[in-house]
């Protein structure tokens, strides 16, 4: 029913326009007295030694990889949950095998200390 999505698009347009108009209106009203000190990156008053385009810890990368793997799992669980009563015991068996494989991967990741934040 494409008609049902109409309010969604109307509201999406409203929601997109609202912050744009707000930011634009604020830019019209507010004072603007730029200066060297105001434009520096905030580092508690100390002069910035370098910019922020450096390297950061690989932990964030590992977490996002793990997220992708397990998020795919939850995506597969939703259709199963919605058709659960029709699938019956067959559905339980299938999802049991599926979860078993994923839990094995989860335990392996835990053993490899990928879940620990050092």
């Amino acid at each position: 029913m494409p008609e049902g999505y109409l309010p969604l698009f109307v509201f999406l347009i409203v929601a997109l326009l609202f912050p744009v108009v707000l930011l634009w209106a604020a830019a019209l009203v507010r004072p603007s007295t730029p200066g060297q000190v105001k434009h520096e990156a905030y580092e508690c008053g100390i002069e910035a030694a370098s910019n922020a385009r450096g390297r950061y810890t690989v932990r964030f990368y590992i977490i996002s990889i793990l997220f992708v793997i397990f998020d795919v799992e939850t995506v597969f669980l939703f259709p199963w949950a919605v058709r659960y009563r029709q699938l019956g015991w067959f559905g339980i068996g299938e999802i049991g095998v599926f979860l078993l494989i994923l839990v094995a991967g989860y335990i392996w990741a835990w053993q490899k200390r990928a879940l620990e934040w050092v």
Partner: protein
Amino acid sequence: MNFFIVSLIKTGLVAFALLTTLAYLQWIERKVLAHIQLRPGPYRVGPHGLLQPLADVIKLVTKEGILPPQAHTFFYLLAPILAVSVALTAIVVIPFGPEVTVFGVTTNMGLADLNIGILFILAISSLGVYGVALGGWASNSKYPLLGGLRSSAQMISYELPLALALAAPLLIMNTLNFREITVLQGGYWLGFIPKWNIFAGPFPQIFSFIIFLIASFAETNRVPFDLPEAESELVGGFHTEYSSMGFASFFMAEYANILTVCCVGTVLFLGGWQPLWPAAYGSDFAPVVILFGSAAILFFHGANALKSRLWDRFSFPVFGVVFLILGALFLVPVLKPVVVPLFWFLSKSLFLVFVFIWIRGTLPRFRYDQLMRFAWTFLFPVAVVNLLVTSFLVAITSN
């Protein structure tokens, strides 16, 4: 054509109500926190600080907005817009009440009645990460970068238990449509225990509800998981370099997210607009009693105002009259089918909002390693086990 006009009117109403609520959520939060800490909170601007949100908006609009020259201009400006738009759009699929007929027009009390409601909410709430991560990265400053990274890692980690906790009640409900989910939770066991999902058989979803609440605290970056804006270590977190309306946008997005999460929790676990006890025992008159009672309390305190708070002598009776009018609305037969479900839905949602603020006033902040370990080595396995137990019990009882 008729559908189009009704949709436009509903969009206008919801947008107005949503933005007003967002402005006043901040007032409510400050007031509740203040009373938890035994201080009056906002008190100067208007009676009991009721005009404080307006004053804050004027202050934020007239503040100087700084565009840092080292920042990536496009993404720096895109981030707050993305955060707010995404957070506001999520409210579209929430049903505030059943299908009603007002003045000859039959319509759903909700904007869009989608058959993929929960998937839509999950998709939209995942997009919220972009606003935070982009804002932190585009500022090209160290505190926002760290705040943005922390925040995105935290939000994606807690997304897993959140999605698993949402999947468990679906096993009982077998639909993704929010309106159908609420309708299925109608009725009572033994005549008085509501058939909401947190009480539902065969396996009460109370554990799913708790996992959902904990995960949504992390998703919305609230205490005790407000690491992205831990002011003692990261100044302001991802919005350190934002000022004026950019800063206000991130705040608005945060409150909109809280509101959405509370509405989703209400629909999925607390029975949406279904009343707490049957209409046969007079649940339709509960709002009237509560509002008239509040009016009576206000009149009493207005008449017996302290000498040091003489202003209350005028403001309290005015509030009392407002409450009387609101209560009288629930007695009008034409409006009754609209306002009574709305009352139950809003009271449950706002109670959850109150829980959010209550937790903020009670718990200290986690350390970052504790936060990540809690998500991956406790909450995630518990959510999986909860899902499996639910599925087994549903299978046993339905065959």
